[in-house]
């Protein structure tokens, strides 16, 4: 029965997304455009000794994946935000469904969408001549990493959606936070190229660990740093999941739980 709820809600998310064709098109195109942009302009300006590789595009792919996942995190929370405002959340809450189905269906849907987008990014990268050092198994590992990051970002965005009074505040906060979140990570430059204080901030940023893991998979192969980065990412995701669940609980306990 729980599966039936998650499936039904996922169907709702999927239909809503698929019907907005233009939105869908741009979501898929955006990371590809970024890739080309990075390959063309920034790549030439980067010092191979700083970046640690002559292949800046391969270096940038994990950053672009992280960028995409952060952007999608914002849209992941939108239905919850609007259900809250239209009152449809009340209708859902009056139904005999588990509270967690709403959240879980969102995670399931978002992981599916993001995986598809990651595959598109890797495909475009392949066309541009970038091939993961770890091969096909590495692609799978990258998908798993992106899924973990999706979990973390979706949970954070949903927690925020529950906490804010209206969507205006939500977009103000996410608009303010998205870019610093990216630039205070190793998305586009390695940590070693940052001033010391920024390194400290970046070390506390879950993005850094997801990017580090994906970058090792892209450039270095199955290296010893991988489990460490993944471990940190799992920890951060778990933490954000707890915060998300707590905020959702608060949102729904004004109603009867």
């Amino acid at each position, binding site marked *: 029965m729980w599966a*039936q709820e998650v499936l039904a809600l996922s*169907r709702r998310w999927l239909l809503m997304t698929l019907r907005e064709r233009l939105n869908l098109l741009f979501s898929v195109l955006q990371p590809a455009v970024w890739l080309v942009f990075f390959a063309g302009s920034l790549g030439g300006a980067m010092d191979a000794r700083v970046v640690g590789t002559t292949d800046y595009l391969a270096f940038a792919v994990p950053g672009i994946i992280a960028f995409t996942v952060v952007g999608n995190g914002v849209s992941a929370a939108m239905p919850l935000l609007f259900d809250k405002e239209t009152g449809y959340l009340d*209708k859902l809450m009056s139904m005999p469904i588990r509270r967690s189905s709403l959240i879980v269906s969102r995670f399931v849907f978002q992981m599916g969408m993001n995986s598809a987008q990651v595959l598109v990014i890797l495909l475009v990268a392949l066309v541009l001549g970038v091939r993961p050092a770890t091969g096909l198994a590495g692609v799978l590992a990258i998908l798993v990493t992106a899924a973990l990051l999706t979990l973390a970002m979706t949970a954070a965005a949903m927690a925020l959606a529950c906490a804010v009074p209206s969507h205006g505040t939500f977009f103000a906060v996410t608009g303010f936070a998205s870019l610093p979140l990216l630039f205070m990570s190793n998305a586009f430059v390695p940590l070693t190229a940052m001033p010391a204080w920024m390194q400290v901030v970046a070390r506390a940023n879950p993005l850094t660990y997801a990017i580090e893991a994906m970058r090792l998979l892209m450039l270095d192969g199955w290296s010893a740093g991988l489990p460490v980065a993944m471990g940190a990412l799992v920890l951060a995701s778990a933490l954000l999941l707890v915060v998300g669940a707590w905020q959702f609980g608060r949102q729904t306990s004004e109603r009867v739980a």
Partner: protein
Amino acid sequence: MGMIIDVERLSRRFGQSTAVDELTLTAGAGEVVGLLGPNGAGKTTTIRMLATLLPPSSGTARVCGFDVVRAAGDVRLRIGYVMQQVSPMGYYMLTGREKTEIEAALYHVPRKRVKARAAEVLELVGLSAHADRLVQAYSGGMQKRLELACGLLHRPELLILDEPTLGLDVQSRHHVWDHIRQLCQEGMTVLLATNYMDEADRLCDRLTIIDHGREVVSGTPAELKAAIGADSLDEVFLRHTGHALREEAA
């Protein structure tokens, strides 16, 4: 025979103000009970407590014998709730059929029956011909009828209707009334909150008028009219609740 609705001295406060004040209300199986009152009287707040969306501040409310707080899950299985406000943005980009099928699944209609049951309720409210259009393109009346259809998916024992004909034309209102009557003949119990006295007069077996969250008077429409020698429920309503606009008083 147990009561379908059994509300005893139910109160709900929001900060300093009391939206529902020691309200007592009952409904037996198959009855249509009306909840009347001026804007802000506490109709929707009462309904939200019965629909397990809002915890009461004090008092008890039971639906089909289940406490709305302690056995919220059992209550949810047995109620259909048609909300006062329907925003089509809630199912943006979905067709009537898709919305109905999704809600059928959420009400745990057996997987193999979902499509058939959705088609059934759409047929019941006369929306079969429009089932595959986007809900946001429906007229207000069609949207209300769709909501009604979705409230029936799991054959609830209690149907809670919060102003089901708000903003509808005469044809649509009669249409909705016919459905409600038919459902009652099949034994469903209905709690109807409305601001339309003619609607209450036509449909309700009993009604309770509330004001400022408190019960003012209860009885059958005939009793209430006879008690003050009035011809219409409008007269009864104004006699008991006065002519002053509510928002000014508050």
